[in-house]
């Protein structure tokens, strides 16, 4: 059922998110002793007044941690198992198992056309 949320008669409906945030703040504040509650409101004030800057800091921190986690997971869950599977299947793309030897190389293309298209 849709419940209209009004702050005062004639005022616009409150968003559910703002009501939820108010409920959370009140629930956190109720069990605190007086001075702790006042200190808590200092923190809430700071957060609300600097919400953009605070969220940038928090998101930057989360982003850094997430990057580390993604690199870790990619290495151990993707690259590592793939390399092990390839090894089990006998792949040796780098020729690491072969005896060291000189490899023959095609002579360099020294034509004018190659000179025009170096890359």
């Amino acid at each position: 059922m849709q419940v209209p949320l009004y702050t005062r008669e004639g005022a616009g409906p409150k968003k559910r998110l703002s009501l939820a945030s108010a409920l959370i703040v009140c629930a956190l504040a109720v069990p605190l002793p007086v001075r702790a509650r006042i200190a808590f409101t200092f923190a809430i004030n700071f957060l609300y007044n600097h919400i953009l800057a605070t969220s940038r800091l928090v998101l930057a921190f989360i982003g850094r941690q997430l990057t580390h986690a993604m690199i870790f997971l990619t290495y151990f869950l993707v690259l590592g198992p793939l390399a092990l599977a390839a090894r089990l299947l006998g792949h040796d793309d780098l020729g690491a198992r072969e005896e060291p030897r000189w490899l023959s190389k095609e002579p360099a293309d020294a034509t004018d056309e190659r000179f025009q298209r170096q890359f």
Partner: protein
Amino acid sequence: MLDVDIEDPALDGGVAHLYSGGADSSLAACRLAQVFPAVHLNTFDRFGFLVASRFPTVHFERMRQRFPQTRFIHRVIPASRFYDEVESYRYWGCLRRHGLLVLNTCGHCKVALHWRNLVFCLQNGIRYASDGAVMNAEEFAEQNPRILMTELEDLYAHFGIKLLHPSYEKGLSTEGTLHDLGITSQRRIKMTTKDLQVVCTQHVLFGMMMRVILTRLSFPEYEAAARAYLHGKLEHIKETTSEFLAKPGEDTLVARLLG
């Protein structure tokens, strides 16, 4: 303009005015200065307030020049313990009975500051008190006649003191009137850098409480609930202050709060 008998000899004792330094309380102080020979500008400080010493003095010098016949005495009085007592008095019982109204920080604050002002009046033999209440700020208990205004008047009256609201007038522009009196340099100061007064950080909690409560109650229902809740606090104040007066020099609650 003020509801006082100008023949009353108690006027000579002056008036104890709750003074934040803002437009409303400054205009109230100016109006008091037209009647009282001495105006005690009591700025209360407590944990959670940001009170810069220069804030309440911005208009102070101009008021002294504008009303040279009146003696303005400015004080900063600590009131943290009074606030703690008001807020924590029967806290869990009140939470059970009145719900989230226990987070009515602005109501607690004004009750505590008026309590400290009342004690100041009793200690100094002052028979008149005053605040900067204005119209159209009815969400604040002390500026709402259906919540706390009359209750506060009754509290002061119980101790033989008359509480005045010099700025409480329909259609009054406190900023404009203050500017016309030559106290401020511009017509609009509220919410500007010129609005240098006591700043409180607990408004946010009061706002959150109102946001939650007004989803369940209409505004008149909120007024009735807030009045019932704060009435209990005022009764406690009346009782403990009477004990303080009855037992001078003894270790009463008010004596301990005064430190």
